[in-house]
């Protein structure tokens, strides 16, 4: 009897963990699905208002958004701010002959890949069930360039969050700042709807900020909405941002280390 109970406990344990992951999964699904419902209704009612965005492309957009949200949204800033800076673990990193940047890069990557694959599974399910309702680029050159855009997008997202994390050394209300940044990212990164459907002014602002390069461009690149020339333009813009963010990071890091080691924690 005792062994049955032990078995049941482990079973419950495994289920509990899986149930927890299932809940995370459902959470990631709900918002895009709601928006999809909304768009379906809107487009069906007045298709001419939305130009080249028909139901298949909008569905692809939101499905890819799920993957983008899971894979490209980096969360390292919380660890940097709370564990490393506030609790002082940063000291450990400073004494090691290894770049703080690289270290965090390798910490974050597995999580992103894992979460991204959940999104890919959803995408594949939709692909299998509704075949022609989802669209992805098929031209090999475009796919290669799109991959570059995606990788650069990830790097931008990573650098940005690194900078945000280190800013905890200077900010008094880090949580508030993170909330604000999240809202800005959602609005200008294309998480509400395709940026090309925004009013023109807002489009211009979005393209002037780095967030579109992190999330929006990778999504529309892989769904084949950009031609080769445009892809190269996007990559160029991403590279400029990468250099900028990289420099800001180096500056922030140097100043930050000086501050951290001067006052302890």
């Amino acid at each position, binding site marked *: 009897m005792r062994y049955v109970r032990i078995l049941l406990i482990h079973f419950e344990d495994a289920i509990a963990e899986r149930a927890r992951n299932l809940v995370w999964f459902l959470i990631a699904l709900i*918002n895009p699905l709601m*928006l999809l419902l909304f768009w379906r209704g809107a487009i069906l009612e007045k298709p001419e*208002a939305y130009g080249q965005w028909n139901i298949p492309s909008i569905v692809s957009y939101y499905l890819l958004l799920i993957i983008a949200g899971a894979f490209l949204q980096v969360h390292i800033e919380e660890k940097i701010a709370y564990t490393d800076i506030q609790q002082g673990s940063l000291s450990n990193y400073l004494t090691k002959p290894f770049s703080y940047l690289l270290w965090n890069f390798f910490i974050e990557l597995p999580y992103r890949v894992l979460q991204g694959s959940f999104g890919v599974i959803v995408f594949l399910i939709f692909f299998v069930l509704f075949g022609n309702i989802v669209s992805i680029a098929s031209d090999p050159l475009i796919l290669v360039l799109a991959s570059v855009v995606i990788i650069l997008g990830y790097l931008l997202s990573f650098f940005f969050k690194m900078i945000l994390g280190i800013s905890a050394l200077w900010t008094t209300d880090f949580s508030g700042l993170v909330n604000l940044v999240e809202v800005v990212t959602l609005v200008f990164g294309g998480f509400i709807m395709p940026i090309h459907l925004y009013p023109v002014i807002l489009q211009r602002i979005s393209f002037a900020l780095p967030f579109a390069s992190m999330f929006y461009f990778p999504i529309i690149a892989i769904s084949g909405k950009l031609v080769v020339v445009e892809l190269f333009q996007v990559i160029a813009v991403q590279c400029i941002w990468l250099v900028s963010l990289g420099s800001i990071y180096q500056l922030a890091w140097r100043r930050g280390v000086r501050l951290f080691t001067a006052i302890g924690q």
Partner: protein
Amino acid sequence: MKLYLRLYKTLLHLNFANLLAYRVNFTTNIVSSVSWGLFSIISIILVTGKANSMFGWRRDEILLLTAIYSVLIGVFHMLFSKNFERFSNLVYYGQLDSLLVKPIDSQFLVSFWLINYTSIFRILLGAAYTFYLLYAYHMAVSLGAVMGFISLLAIGLTLLYSVWFLCVTLTIWFPRLTNIVFFMYSVSGLTRYPQEMYRQLASYVFLFLMPITLIVTTPTKALVQRLSLAEAIMLIGFAFTLFYASRKFWKFALRYYTSASS
């Protein structure tokens, strides 16, 4: 009854004192409240930008829906959110016992213990936007409509609370499902869209979701005088049924809790 009112008054006082004592959290909460409030308003404006009507609703009515959603969710956050977040920890860390030993209804203690005053900003934001829309779009509003609106909003709040409570009670069997609270936040977000939008779903899914979809839609219709009696009755019916169910389920859960744990 008087006991509970007095107790709640004391809790209001303690929570307020708590707020003053811990000012750092104060600004954080206001910033996030307002940020998310602005976000939902910006989203709906953008998303309805290119059309004048959908699902049988005019664009301004859909915007109004979001405004009223902000008010409702603000009230919900103020009264209940922190308590639900606390609940999953209560079970996980075995602190439910000290609650059960008190001579006060346990569902009350679990639901009303904490108050989040900073949500008032979300409510104000929503209310301000509501007034703005009513004025800017010249929407006719009568006293009767306002009374109906407030009553149905309160009933909608009860319904939302009951759904939350039913789901969160599950953590008694699955203490690790602390993230169910985040799931419920997403589910609450369902209420900001017109109920008619969900008719696109397969009928069994729609029926399952129906109570939730009515929460903000119905009071809003009352305000702009588009309400059908049937919908009002459905909302009231669902609210009472689910509230009753939440109490029954809670008692059932406690029976399980007090028989298996050690």
